[in-house]
């Protein structure tokens, strides 16, 4: 299905929550309001003709210049062979977004990673703790303004 | 050796009881040391053989640097293990931890004693030889549990529990299948069992060919024996890829070497029981009435005995490097649902055969018919 058509269907169903469609990325990106993300994803997964059963990737992006933090969901459908990316832009000083763990259980680990590296809080997540960095690490390494610590426990870093 | 002791002490009958005790003790110590030396030499060579056999099966060479064809590798390994740091974990139960390897090794080595190596070469011709050997081998399971608990390590405990469950369960098919063969010579003495199998060109009166039940009993015994010794496919107690090294995880250096050597000693012991009971012991096939000096005959008999045992051990090694490992519940299932019932009904069948045919074997019947 063409991205324009998907965007059309979504705009109809979730009027007011769709922000824009960007077609020059591969795959095309649809910008969504942060609080509508879970409903949009569930709709995309269950609806006939869309059936995005796979959450291919969930990434965080630090857009420091625009003072925003983005969470990007790449969705794919094996049945209809189409892919789309859903983007939600969050306030950089207080990034909150509801979790899509209830839609795809694998989002559990992806969201933990985004929390660990970017500091995005996923509301409703069952077990939001660091996954790659040590449990008592301070700071969010992938942010653009991250300052490397001088010491960790007894080691000079 | 007992005859030797009696011989020598007979000559001392006019010497005081003290002298007799001293001489007896010295002779027993000497014979013990000789058996220990033989056992240790065997165990060293067995580790070398295992590595060479493994290399052969796995399309590689195996040890070939230390000595001709790598033969002295076991000496190098022994020296290495002696020089390793002796670590006792801080929270380990010290006495259990230290005692376990010694008990395991003693139990496995003590079973070398009642074996009859040839017609006149033996250490102690116990009249309860088989019973003694089975009983002493069971001490291994207790010592394994001591080592596992004393290590204060969860992985060791896992291994120890599995080991005890396995060893204790597999004792039953072993004993039942041994009984199927023991009822024919009707004696527990190792030498008498072997002497019973003489004649028949040195091969056809072996108890394995006596009746179809003993043939089946041999295979049941062999499978249960592999499980008794903790060899793959039954090596879950020391399944190194699952629980690090099982019950000997915390042992280093010479203590570990004791466990290791005890395993090869056990392999020898169970193979020796199989050879004695089923494969004719030191009976040389097809030699018959060929006359030769006594010493040559004795040497040949010892050589034949060891050859048969080594063939069975080679088979154990071959199986180890071929088959994957059974899971613990599948292993227990094999023992209790398959081997034990088979061994039990086998025993009943063997008993019926002995009752009806008065202990005669297949060869005896055929020979009897041909003569008439």
């Amino acid at each position, binding site marked *: 299905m063409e991205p324009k058509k998907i965007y059309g269907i979504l705009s109809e169903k979730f009027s007011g929550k769709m922000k824009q469609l960007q077609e020059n990325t591969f795959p095309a990106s649809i910008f969504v309001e942060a609080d509508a993300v879970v409903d949009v994803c569930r709709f995309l997964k269950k609806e006939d003709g869309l059936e995005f059963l796979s959450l291919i990737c969930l990434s965080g992006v630090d857009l420091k210049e625009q003072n925003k933090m983005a969470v990007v969901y790449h969705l794919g459908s094996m049945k209809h062979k189409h892919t789309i990316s859903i983007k939600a832009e969050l306030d950089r000083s207080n990034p909150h977004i509801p979790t899509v763990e209830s839609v795809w259980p*694998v989002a559990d*680990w992806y969201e933990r990673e985004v929390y660990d590296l970017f500091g995005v809080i996923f509301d409703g997540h069952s077990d939001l703790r660091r996954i*790659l960095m040590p449990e008592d690490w301070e700071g969010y390494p992938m942010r653009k303004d991250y300052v490397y610590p001088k010491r960790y426990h007894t080691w000079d870093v | 050796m007992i005859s030797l002791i009696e011989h020598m002490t007979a000559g001392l009958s006019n010497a005081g009881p003290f002298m007799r005790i001293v001489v007896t003790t010295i002779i027993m110590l000497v014979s013990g040391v000789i058996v220990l030396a033989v056992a240790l030499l065997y165990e060293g060579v067995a580790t070398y053989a295992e590595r060479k056999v493994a290399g052969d099966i796995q399309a590689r060479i195996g040890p070939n640097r230390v000595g001709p064809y790598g033969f002295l590798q076991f000496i190098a390994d022994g020296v290495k293990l002696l020089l390793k740091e002796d670590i006792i974990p801080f929270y380990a139960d010290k006495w259990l931890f230290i005692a376990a390897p010694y008990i395991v090794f003693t139990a496995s080595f003590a079973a070398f004693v009642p074996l009859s190596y040839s017609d006149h070469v033996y250490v102690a011709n116990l009249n309860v030889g088989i019973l003694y050997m089975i009983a002493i081998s069971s001490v291994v399971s207790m010592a394994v549990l001591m080592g596992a608990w004393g290590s204060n390590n*969860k992985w060791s405990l896992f291994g120890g529990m599995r080991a005890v469950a396995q060893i204790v369960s597999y004792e039953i098919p072993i004993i039942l299948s041994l009984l199927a063969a023991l009822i024919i010579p009707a004696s527990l003495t190792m030498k008498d069992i072997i002497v019973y199998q003489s004649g028949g060109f040195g091969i056809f009166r072996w108890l394995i060919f006596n009746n179809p039940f003993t043939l089946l009993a041999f295979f049941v015994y062999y499978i249960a024996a592999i499980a008794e010794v903790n060899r793959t496919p039954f090596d879950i107690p020391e399944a190194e890829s699952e629980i690090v090294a099982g019950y000997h995880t915390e042992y280093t250096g010479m203590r570990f070497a004791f466990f290791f050597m005890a395993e090869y000693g056990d392999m020898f012991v169970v193979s020796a029981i199989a050879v004695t009971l089923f494969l004719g012991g030191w009976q040389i096939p097809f030699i018959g009435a060929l006359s030769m000096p006594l010493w040559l005959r004795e040497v040949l008999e010892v050589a034949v005995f060891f050859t048969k045992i080594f063939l069975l051990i080679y088979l154990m090694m071959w199986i180890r490097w071929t088959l994957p490992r059974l899971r613990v519940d*599948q292993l227990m299932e094999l023992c209790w649902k398959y081997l034990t019932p088979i061994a039990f009904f086998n025993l009943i069948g063997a008993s019926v055969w002995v009752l009806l045919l008065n202990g005669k074997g297949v060869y005896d019947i055929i020979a009897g018919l041909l003569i008439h």
Partner: protein
Amino acid sequence: MAGTDEKFMQISMGPQHPSTHGVLRLLVTTDGEVLSGVKPYIGYLHRGLEKIAERLTYPQFTPFTDRLDYLAAMNCNLAYAMTVEKLLNVEIPRRAQILRVIMAELNRISSHLISFGSFSADMGAFTPFLFGIREREFINDLFEMTCGARLTYNYIRIGGVSQDIPEGFIDKTREFLDYFPAKIKEYNELLSFNAIFIKRLANIAVISPEDAFDYGVTGPNLRASGIKWDLRRAEPYLIYNELDFDIPVGKGEMGKVGDSWDRYMMRIYEMEQSANIVRQCLDMLEAGDYTAKISKVLKPPAGEVYVRAENPRGELGFYLISDGSAKPYRLKIRAPSFANLSIITKLARGVMMADLIAIIGSLDIILPEIDR
């Protein structure tokens, strides 16, 4: 020695363990042998590759992709190169494409050989591992001949490949392809259809198609659950649409569809198919450039792409955001093993300890790409 709850024991299959394929910690809650839960801890190998990518230029990052999944380094190189080329919109010469397919498929064979070998070693059959290594030596020799490295190749670069294949490569590859099918037959006889092996794996950890989609499982694990999805067919890249090869799918031959045996067998079938592909590519190889002409200082236009490729372990994807400069703005690596491992909390409930090892082995994970 008890945990906080008297009934359950908490064991850490810690970061150092012979069977977790890398530094993975599994906190296992068990009562005796049956597990009630598994909590994986990762991050022991986190090197911050994504942060490093933001500091280096595009060509400088290629060697880092080798170290993502070092057993399938060519495929990782390939996915990254394709991502940058998509942004650049450059066309790769045909010879370079065919060379890329040859290298990627040979790497797939060698990755599956290691996966098969280490899985069988976990199961207790040590011999097939060494057979796999023996075959892999041929492939390593081929790669060494081409690019000088045996494990981390850095061969498939942005724009093409780093150098042309040397003389003798084609003949040697054909030699290997003639020799290889007999070996697969040998593996099947030795291990795949062995009764003990099947007993250990059949009906263990069945992944249903719904679970596979929900947990993002890809690669042979997904195909073992009956879903015929391969990126080389569904979204063809390079010259895969011109090649004739099958996509093996799990049929539940030994148990339910999607059990561990199916996942294991997928890799064996895929090795056969890859050998087939390489043979076709060798016939199609024609003269030409081995790389496209791209500028030394690579500045792709601003944009975002997500490109994915079929790695031996699943779907490897790179999400690249470029801001027009010589360094990436954001590079996210979607590793197949990350999603494959997340399903283990669901699968490992109610299985036995030995089965946990079987599950991890059948999922075929590798830690460096999980931790990046």
